[in-house]
């Protein structure tokens, strides 16, 4: 079949009659978005639709509809003339008219065909003529809208349909069925006759029972296998979809893990850095950093006051002693060799004095004070003085001594005690505070530098993530993460299912061997009746014939697939010219369909081929199917593609059209490739540099100028033959 001409009349944006002469090879119909490419394609789909008489008003040109007068009428039609064992034509049309109310009505749908012999045109039924020249199944492999529809093996019955239609082995089905029937009948007959044989009855019954068991087991295992195969196939399909984004998922996962890690680090560092210094001045008493000189000043002042007070007290005591004539007291007071002011009576305290006496050592100066020595006696006197003091004090308080003491208050003592309390550890801590603060501030500074580094890393990771998400525009971050999790689960399930399947297949093999063995045993039985022996031989012969047909059928499908694969690879090589191409492998699946895969030269599966790679792969298979059809059915048919190359780059486009141009095959491709933006006119115009390199026919379709996007009745596609 070869298309010669297509005439589209008043079909949607195609106003009036629009002619397209088609060349034997490639015809390019070039138009930008909205220029009418898909409408053209859908006009053909409408023409080829034999399922219903569609005279929908929506197919009428809005411009024509708006234009016609009341009670006037016109027609919508698509006409195709073609060669198929002679010149033929089909034309589908319906009439539309505007009634008195201005409403549009459609009527008189017709689908007419013509056979043209010489100058005579013989009218035929359009539907019958179309089906006989270009049947529904073939049409399935002819019209392709966009890139997604190119995979012809996307449903489970595709391979069977393809094999049935194009391989010419459909008759094998009948033969297999017939021989199987014969085998079954003869088997029943032999078994029935053998059972009558008294000698063999027991054996045959046993064999029959065992065979029945094995057959039932085989049937069960087959059922399990088909379920398992379906599962494996489903897993593979889903994994394949997921696989396409697996790299991105893993990268995202890694980046997210890094970001999370950095965020934790960031929070930790912020904790070190974000200090409330004002609170620390008070809560941690950092405000006392410069306090040591003041403490020192206090200690000196209080020590001096204490000394002064004791000096005055001593003088007072002397005066009283003299007055009271208590020389002993004077002697006691004057015990210190150089007439220095003695320590207060309560220093050192009672416990300390007792300890020094017991240990016979002065723990103030560190010198020994052996019992009986001056030093020892001094300590004993000092302790006695302490005890006297306590005793006298209590006596005085009991006797209510009327003599007024020199000092009636002990505030200086209070201050002195506080001074003593603050010396030692507290004083040391105060002195160290400056260092503590300096260390802490240095630590914070260092963490600030760490934070800067972490923040920089975070920005880099966020950028990387952004970049990654830009590269997978169809997927959100959530989808990618879900994808990653699903993939892991599915991978595991798929592996398990594959293992189960292997085991089941092994089990099936064993059962089949058992069955074969039982059959053999059955065939080995020598019947006593001569006629039964003949039956038996006939059955054995029929069984072999049946097996031969089964094997032949299977081999035929395998051969068909092999031929398809070979042809597809020839086209793949052509379509990809110098580019990487890989090898197409078509694999039969459990569900009776097939899967097209691309393998690299070292025989590893390319799980996620690029857009152009995938398109050329599928197109190669389509060309191969078409080629096989030509070979097997001795008939050719055109391939019609609507925008198949949207994922191609500029370079790939040129090569692609050049190659299709040179393939001996009628193709119509609707595309917006080969348009170039013109800065001066600010429009996309034909790229004649590229078009002139092609030898094919080229049509330009575009909206006629001056249209109003809001008003459909102003939109009209105009067509122009460029070459």
């Amino acid at each position, binding site marked *: 079949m070869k298309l010669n001409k297509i005439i589209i009349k008043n079909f949607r944006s195609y106003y009036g009659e629009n002619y397209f002469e088609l060349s034997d090879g490639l015809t390019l119909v070039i138009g930008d978005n909205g220029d009418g490419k898909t409408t053209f394609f859908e006009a053909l789909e409408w023409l080829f639709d034999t399922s219903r008489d569609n005279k929908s008003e929506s197919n009428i040109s809005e411009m024509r509809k708006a234009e016609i007068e009341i009670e006037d009428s016109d027609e919508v039609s698509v006409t195709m003339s073609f060669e198929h064992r002679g010149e033929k034509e089909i034309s589908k049309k319906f009439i539309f008219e505007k009634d008195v109310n201005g409403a549009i009505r459609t009527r008189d749908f017709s689908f007419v065909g013509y056979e043209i012999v010489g100058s005579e045109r013989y009218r035929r039924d359009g539907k019958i003529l179309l089906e006989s020249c270009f049947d529904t199944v073939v049409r399935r492999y002819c019209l392709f809208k966009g890139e997604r529809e190119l995979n012809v093996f996307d449903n489970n019955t595709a391979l069977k349909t393809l094999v049935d239609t194009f391989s010419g082995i459909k008759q094998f089905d009948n033969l297999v069925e017939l021989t199987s029937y014969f085998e079954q009948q003869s088997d029943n007959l032999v078994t029935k006759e053998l059972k009558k044989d008294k000698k063999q009855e027991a054996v045959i019954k046993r064999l029959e029972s065992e065979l029945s068991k094995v057959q039932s087991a085989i049937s069960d295992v087959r059922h399990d296998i088909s379920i398992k195969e379906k599962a494996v196939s489903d897993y593979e399909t889903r994994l394949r979809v997921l696989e396409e984004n697996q790299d991105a998922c893993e990268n995202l996962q890694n980046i997210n893990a890094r970001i999370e890690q950095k965020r934790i680090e960031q929070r930790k560092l912020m904790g070190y850095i974000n200090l*409330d210094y004002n609170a620390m*001045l*008070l809560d*941690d008493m950092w405000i006392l950093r410069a306090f040591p000189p003041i403490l020192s000043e206090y200690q000196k002042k209080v020590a001096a006051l204490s000394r002064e007070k004791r000096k005055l007290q001593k003088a007072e005591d002397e005066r009283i002693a003299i007055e009271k004539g208590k020389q002993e007291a004077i002697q006691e007071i004057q015990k210190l060799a150089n007439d220095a002011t003695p320590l207060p009576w309560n220093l050192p305290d009672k416990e300390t004095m007792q300890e020094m006496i017991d240990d016979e050592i002065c723990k*103030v100066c560190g010198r020994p004070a052996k019992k009986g020595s001056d030093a020892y006696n001094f300590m004993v006197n000092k302790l006695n003085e302490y005890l006297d003091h306590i005793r006298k004090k209590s006596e005085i308080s009991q006797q209510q001594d009327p003599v007024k003491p020199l000092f009636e*208050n002990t505030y200086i003592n209070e201050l002195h005690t506080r001074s003593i309390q603050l010396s030692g550890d507290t004083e040391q801590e105060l002195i160290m505070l400056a260092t503590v603060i300096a260390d802490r501030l240095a630590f914070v500074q260092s963490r600030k530098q760490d934070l800067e580094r972490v923040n920089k890393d975070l920005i880099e990771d966020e950028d990387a993530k952004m970049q990654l998400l830009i590269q997978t525009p169809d997927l959100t971050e959530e989808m990618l993460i879900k994808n990653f999790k699903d993939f892991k689960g599915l991978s595991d399930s798929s592996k398990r299912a594959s293992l189960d399947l292997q085991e089941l297949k092994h089990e099936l093999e064993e059962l089949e061997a058992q069955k074969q063995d039982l059959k053999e045993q059955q065939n080995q039985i020598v019947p006593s009746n001569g006629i039964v022996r003949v039956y038996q031989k006939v059955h054995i012969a029929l069984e072999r014939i049946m097996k031969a047909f089964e094997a032949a059928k299977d081999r035929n499908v395998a051969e068909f697939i092999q031929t398809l694969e070979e042809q597809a690879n020839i086209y793949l090589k052509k379509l990809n010219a110098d580019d990487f191409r890989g090898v197409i492998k078509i694999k039969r699946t459990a569900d009776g369909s097939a899967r097209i895969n691309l393998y690299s030269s070292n025989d590893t599966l390319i799980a996620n081929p690029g857009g152009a790679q995938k398109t050329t792969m599928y197109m190669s298979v389509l060309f191969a199917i078409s080629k096989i059809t030509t070979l097997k059915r001795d008939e050719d048919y055109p391939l019609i593609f609507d925008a198949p190359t949207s994922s191609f780059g500029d370079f790939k486009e040129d090569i692609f059209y050049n190659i299709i141009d040179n393939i001996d095959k009628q193709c119509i491709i609707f595309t917006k490739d080969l348009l170039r933006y013109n800065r001066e006119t600010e429009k996309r115009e034909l790229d004649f540099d590229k078009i002139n390199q092609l030898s094919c026919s080229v049509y330009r379709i575009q909206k006629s100028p001056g249209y109003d996007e809001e008003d459909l009745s102003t939109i009209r596609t105009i067509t122009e033959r460029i070459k």
Partner: protein
Amino acid sequence: MAEKLYDLWAKRNPNWEKRFEDSIIKNFSDYGKGVTKLGEAKGKLFGAGYEVFIIAFFIGLYYGQRRKLIDDSTKIKSLGQPIQYWGNIDSVKGRKAYPKLKEFIFIALVAKTDFDFIALDKGLVTPRKAVDALMQTMEEYANWGFHFMEDKLIDNPNYFYRETAFLEIFLTFDSSTTESTEDEPESLD
């Protein structure tokens, strides 16, 4: 037994000049808000009003600068909490108590106040007089500190909103005990 000087002092509330109420005390602390409303007061540099007073006091102390309070009692105000409660509670989130700090304030006041403690012990002057003298020292140092802050704010109203603004002031003071120990420790033998 007579009450300790420290305890007498700790019962007091120091005075300060009203002029700092809005510009400094309320500006920097939750002064006047009451404990229950503390949670609402966000972004304040300090909690209670006395905290600003302590800061002002130490600024004056370390600079060695005192300034008499204005001689007009109508322009004077005192803090709500006596010294004994300062720094005792840590009800504000993220803060901790610092009860010891007031002891150091007391020490500084004793060191810096010119007062005849011998006469006090002899009973020639009342403890009240002593505490009055200590309080005056405290108020005068703080008053100078408030003026110091006010000057900073005139130049730049946001001066103290840098997180390290106050800390930096306290880091400028010398922390070493420069004077050599003039007075030898008393000989014990």
